[in-house]
């Protein structure tokens, strides 16, 4: 996510209810389709978005997602920035491990979403909320 990456179109959605998760999925589907992602790549990124949106609600007490089309020299993609003001993640390394969960889920959300993205960043500290950024580039 260097300085060469330009955000072109951006929209922000609330992520507070399970209906919001469905809306996030639809918006990410529309954006990835508009950029020209293959059906497989669309599905991968929509699934990653669904996992992180649910985390924002279940662990972050709700928040927002900024969805933007991004361009860098020779490539185009979609970037998602999920932000919440929840309790934060004490141990990000642990949260990124397959099967680790504090919420009674399967513990696949964070590591699975990372696998489904090309770039994946987590910024968080206890009491400071959590910011998760996902980028997927259109395959050429």
């Amino acid at each position, binding site marked *: 996510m260097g300085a060469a990456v330009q955000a072109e179109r951006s929209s922000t959605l609330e992520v507070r*209810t*399970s*209906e919001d*998760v*469905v809306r996030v*999925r*639809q918006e990410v*589907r529309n954006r990835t389709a508009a950029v020209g992602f293959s*059906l*497989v790549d*669309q*599905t*991968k990124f*929509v*699934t990653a978005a*669904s*996992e992180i949106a*649910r985390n924002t609600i279940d662990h972050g007490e709700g928040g927002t997602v900024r969805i933007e089309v991004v361009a860098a020299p020779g490539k185009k993609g979609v970037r998602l920035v999920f932000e919440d003001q929840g309790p934060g993640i004490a141990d990000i390394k642990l949260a990124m491990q*397959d099967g680790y969960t504090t919420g009674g*889920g*399967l513990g*696949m*959300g964070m*590591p*699975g*979403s990372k*696998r*489904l993205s090309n770039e994946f960043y987590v910024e968080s500290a206890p009491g400071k909320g959590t910011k998760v950024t996902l980028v997927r580039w259109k395959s050429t």
Partner: protein
Amino acid sequence: MEQIPILKVGRCLLVSIQIDMHDKLAMALQDDLTQKLVDTRARGVLIDISALDLVDSFIGRMLSNIAAMARVLDAQTVVVGMRPQVAITLVELGLTLTGIHTALDVDKGLALINRLIDDPDGGSGAGGAQ
């Protein structure tokens, strides 16, 4: 309130998920199916997901839970119609859908369910772990 219809066909309950389910609706389906299994004494559950363009960890867990509850209630579960892009994504996400039998379409799913009902241990080779 939104609801996903559950049809009884022979010894089997048939569910076709046609909409992008939010989590509460998925939980309601799980509860409805379990209740209907008890009420109808059905021996099989066939879940058609051919209209679903995504199976994330929550929906995956719901499918595994339905299969586990059905087994406790002496019924077999078969999931049919998964789209190829959904299957690719599920594997990369890391979900294995433990305990779920799968078939390519409704016809093959019904045939598998009937085989499983008649011979619960003989259904291996058709996909899904025990």
